């Protein structure tokens, strides 16, 4: 399985990354090297192994009960809107502003 420059372009598209003409072949080369290394996982027969979906599963610890870690669902004070909006690149103080989405 080898990753072509076209594949990299496709994946970059999915990830919303703009890669330059110089970056594309370099990334293809790097991805191939790393994926080639990752391919050794295929030496292992994992057909009967459960994926580790939660950290600590299978380590013989009593699973944590929901009520132990979930807080009560009540209204609480949140982060101040002003401090949040002050960080926005463009805002009218209430909303985030972005370049026009729909052409008219």
């Amino acid at each position: 399985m080898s990753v072509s420059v076209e594949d990299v372009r496709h994946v970059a598209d999915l990830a919303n990354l703009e890669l330059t003409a110089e970056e594309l072949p370099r990334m293809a080369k790097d991805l191939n090297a790393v994926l080639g290394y990752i391919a050794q996982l295929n030496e292992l027969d994992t057909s009967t192994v459960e994926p580790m979906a939660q950290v600590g599963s299978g380590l013989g610890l009593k699973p944590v009960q929901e009520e132990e870690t979930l807080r009560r669902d009540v209204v609480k004070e949140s982060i101040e809107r002003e401090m949040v909006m002050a960080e926005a690149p463009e805002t009218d103080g209430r909303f985030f502003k972005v370049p026009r989405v729909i052409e008219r």
Partner: protein
Amino acid sequence: MGWSAGVMENGMAREQKMSLQSLTLTEARSAVVEGRVSAVALAQQHFERIAELDGEIHSFLTLTRERALAQAEKVDAAARAGEALGPLAGVPVGIKDVLTTRGVETTAGSKILSGYHPPYDATAVARLEAAGAVVLGKLNCDEFAMGSSNENSAYGPVKNPRAMDRVPGGSSGGSAAAVAAGLCVASLGTDTGGSIRQPAAFCGVVGVLPTYGRVSRYGLIAFASSLDRVGPFARSVEDAATVLEVMAGPDELDATASPQRVADYAAETRKGVEGLRIGVPEEYFGEGLHGEIRAAIETVLDGLRSSGCSLHKVSLPHTRYAVPTYYVLATAEASSNLSRYDGVRYGLRSKDAATLASMFRNTRDEGFGAEVKRRILLGTYVLSAGYYDAYYKKAQQVRSLLARDFVQAFADVDAIVAPVTPTPAFKLGEKTSDPLQMYLEDIYTVSASLAGICGMSVPCGETSDGLPIGVQVLGKYFDEETMLRVGAGVERNQKG
């Protein structure tokens, strides 16, 4: 005594000048509590040392002078009033720049977050300050904690204070270097695949990776959420234990922060190691391990045996699959976590974009460095249609096997002792051109990351070139107590 404000303002000379290079947390706190030095003066002394040395080391990205002095004054006022002081009262600390600090620039080492002032503190930071710690500033790191040498920081690399032509390790390179150079007494780092233990080993300080769930991740800028952990750097095992205890425990802002009981970790470090069973994993002593590191670890093991431990060979048969597993899972999670950086709500926004789509793409192109892009691409690839089972699911299955290795090994031993890194600190620029070579730096650290168990790095000597060597102690799930006891035992034997 330096009690009255008048004396403090113009009587700095009466304050005890502390030897910052080797000052321990316990010494710093008692000096403040007993009034031999004020918290303000101790912070000032550190800022002076940072001004003198950090131009070249480059461990700090931002200094939080105002916040530090306000906190130090609060501690001093409490001391004057005879109030009970917290376990970190007046202790100057540094914070890795992937942990948010309210109102203080937090970049994660990335250009895409330059100028970002978070509206909240990370829980770990808030708990340190509540215990009296004085935050001096934010520490340099690899961009989004992706790297093993700190050379991926958008703000320039950190140098290893023990050998200025060498890397400090990564990704928490600034956190390790600042403690090693005496620029702060302790620091916080984060570890996803070795990012605390490896730089601790390279810089000759203690670094602790707590069990996954031991410390809240609230306010930790996410790289790979099932692997990211916050932990301390310090100059002694007891100091690291004290910082860990302050941070540990449940947090209603992070549902993965566990309600498991938190012990008096500092007290555990004084317990001695007699009777403990130490596992030695054969897979960690194979080809590629530097001869002087091997010899240093063997000396550590001999020392533990003399202290009353029994040594046992254990096997962790899937070790060689840990790095490939890690680079599937960590990049998959990263590709998802980093999708939030789009130039809309915070951080950088590309100036020249006419449409929303091009704004997203240009912002991410300008804001992310090469390694971050590489990992986003790899992560997107392994999660993309048609490849999910072959890569992501497969890696999650191997992750189960790696965890099972540890369960089996820990059935017979109380802790595992192994190297942290295959080599001592390498030269700046030595591995930057080959990403795979850099990834292999993590060979002895990623297994514990994937399994979720705790681990630490303790200094255990140096090479003939004077480069620090660290030894790794791995503990059972939520058994930091035993791990710290063994770490302290190693440290005592070092002091002879």
